[in-house]
Every structure is written in C-alpha cells, then in structure tokens.
C-alpha cells in the first residue's frame, strides 16, 4: 500500500471512530443502571425489611442518606468471626458520620442462642437482623459467607466483596469514600 493511501485509510478509521462515538452516545441514559434493583455494583440495593434480635424492624430504604455496609454472615463461619472485630471498630468510629452496618444473619443455617453468644463475645453494637426465610440472601444472590455489600447514600451498591475476612483498612477506606 502506498504511504498516501495508508494515511488516508488511517484518517478514515479515526473519522469512523469519531462518528461511532457520537452515534452511540448514551442519549437515553441506558448506561445508568442505578435505578434497577440488583445485587451488583452500580445497581440499586434490593430493598428489604427484617427484624433485629431485639424485635425491631429495619428497612434498608429507610437508611437512605447513610452509607451502609450490608454483611451476610453466620456464627459458624470462621472468616465471619475474623472480620467482626474490624466491623465493630469501624462502626464505633464512623457511626456518628452517617454510616451504619446491617449484619444479616443466615438464621436458617444458624441458631438464636449462638447468635446472642456471638454478639456478646464480640461486643457488637450494630444491628443484627435475622433472614428467617432466606429471602434476602436469595435477593442478594449470596453464594458464600461472608459476603458484604458497600452501599452509598443514594442506596446504590458501590462494591460487592465475596469472602473474607475483609481487611480493616479496606473497610475504613471504603467508608471514607462513601461518607464524603
């Protein structure tokens, strides 16, 4: 191919690329997934209402305006045990800065006595809710424990962490980003 032909071809390719960029611009807002509920980063966190150990109801959508760490756990799960002290420490440090932890217990694979003992052992002060019929675990497609969802103040999931234990520095850095 002659140099002039090649240059024309290259200019043509770039012009085509520019035309495609403009043609495929997202005028309809197709790439904003934040309004659809799904257990994935970039999507609205699926809403739920569950009861705490004390019998109070917690609805996720009522927590809008706060950064939320939604943690699925069970007492028999070693990484869940390992990450709880870091969660408690972060909760104690950030609870007054629009941050809350909601610990969803997979009660179908656990028991109430063990949960109470666990809460006392680690001195957990954040709410623990019971997923009695596992509907919330299903809605969040929890495949292994622990699984954690960082949710921003608008209720949109910013990150999903499958497995654990999560490093304390990771919890703190994610919270700092979410409460900005």
């Amino acid at each position, binding site marked *: 191919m002659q*140099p002039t032909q090649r240059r024309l071809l290259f200019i043509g390719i770039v012009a085509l690329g520019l035309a*495609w960029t403009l043609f495929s611009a997202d005028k309809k807002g197709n*790439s904003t997934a934040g309004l659809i509920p799904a257990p994935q980063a970039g999507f609205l966190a699926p809403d739920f209402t569950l009861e705490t150990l004390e019998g109070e109801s917690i609805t996720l959508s009522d927590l809008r305006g706060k950064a939320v760490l939604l943690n699925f756990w069970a007492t028999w799960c070693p990484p869940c045990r390992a990450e709880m002290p870091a969660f408690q*420490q972060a909760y104690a440090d950030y609870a007054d800065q629009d941050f809350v932890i909601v610990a969803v217990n997979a009660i179908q694979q656990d028991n109430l006595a063990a949960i109470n003992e666990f809460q006392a052992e680690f001195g957990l002060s954040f709410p623990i809710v019971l997923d009695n019929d596992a509907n919330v675990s299903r809605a969040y497609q929890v*495949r292994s424990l622990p699984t954690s969802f960082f949710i921003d103040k608008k209720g949109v999931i910013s990150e999903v962490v499958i497995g654990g234990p999560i490093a304390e520095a*990771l919890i703190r850095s994610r919270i700092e980003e979410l409460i900005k």
Partner: protein
Amino acid sequence: MLPVIQIGPLSLQAPGLFLLISLWVGITLAEKNAKNYKLSADQLSNLILIALVSGVVGARIGYIARFPEAFASAPRNIVSLNPGLLDITGGIAAAIIAAMIYGQRKELLFWDTLDTLLPFFGMLAIGMALSNFASGNAFGMETDLPWAVDLWNTKRHPSQIYEIFAALVTLNVLYPPKRIAQSPAGSAFITFVAITAGYRLFLEAFRGDSTLIFGSIRSAQVIALIVLALALWGLEKIKMQAKAE
C-alpha cells in the same frame, strides 16, 4: 456470571483465578515468542516478574497514599493479601518504571521487547474480559436481540462475551507473528494497541455501565479513540522510518 467456584468447602474467587491463569499462559507464550525476536527468554520472564512484583508493591503504596488514615488505624494491613487494597494507577506506573529500568540495565531493545510481549498483553486482555464475565462487571445495556442474556431480570447485551471474542480474535490474528523480517520493530505491538483500542471503541457502545462525559458521551470511547489515533500515527511513523533506513 460465576463469581465463586465452590469446590467442597473451598470458595475460589473466579475473577482472580481467570486473571491469574491468563497471566501464566501469557508469560509462557511470551517466553516462546522470545526466540522469534532473538531475545533471551530468561531476561523476558525476569522483566515480567519484576514488573508484576513492582506493580503490586506500587499499587499498595498508591493505596496507602490515598487513604493514610485507614492504615494508621490498622498498620498491619499494609502487608495484607487483600486485593481490594490496591491502587491501579499506582500499580501500572510502578510496573512501567520498573520494567524500563530493568530493560535499560539489560540493554533490551525497546520495540523488539514490546513485540515479544504481545502474547502476554493479548492474554492479559482475554483474562480481564474473562474476569469481568465471572464477576458480572462491564455488563451490557438492555436489548431485545435474540442473543441477549438474562442478567438481573433484564435482557442485556452479552458485552463481556463480545470482549472475550474480540480479544481472542486479536491475539489469533497477531500471534504467532508472521513476516517478522519485513516488519519494522514495534509494528506488531502498535498494531495490537490499535486493534484493541478499535474494538474497545466499538464494543463500549453496548455497555450498560459506561461513565458519561458531556451528558451522553462515553468516556472510554473518547480514550480509545485517542489511543487509536496515536497508535495509527505511531504505525505510520515507524513505517516511514524503516523505509528511510
């Protein structure tokens, strides 16, 4: 979507696993490719290893620099194995700097080395696409096309599969290399960059998670267009230089 591979009590993180396997295959192919460019396979694998280790260290230092308070409360986490505590920009910068220093010390030819590393970069692109497929990231926008996939109760473009296919075709076209003697040094690598930028520019249009600028323009397409233009300009330049020589 396959974020976790469950083998008995063991939960394997599929996105990371796919990326690691792709890196390993990429290193093996690059070492094999070394003899095509008359480079030392040992030096090449050392270069990759140094870049990877420096990249991880740089990524961690970058993350600590961004969130010093988080590490002040948990200093042991500086050496945590948690992959979430990495800053990608810092990692890439550290990997490039370390590779450049090693390359200069060993007097590796810049463009020949990049040409030799082409299968490594090609496998990296495949690995990233597979990783996105496993994690559900880089998902497609809604569509009613017959090949749409059902993702979170919505029919969507299988954007990760498009990306895997494009990365596979790109590597298959450029590797193993043809007519090395007739091609100026660097042409294989720059062609790879141009094709990769080209398919990213095209496929980004089907993504459902694009970051938008100026209201509706997908930022990834703008970056890909700039990279494509620079790669084509570079290709023209090295061809003209080779002709002049």
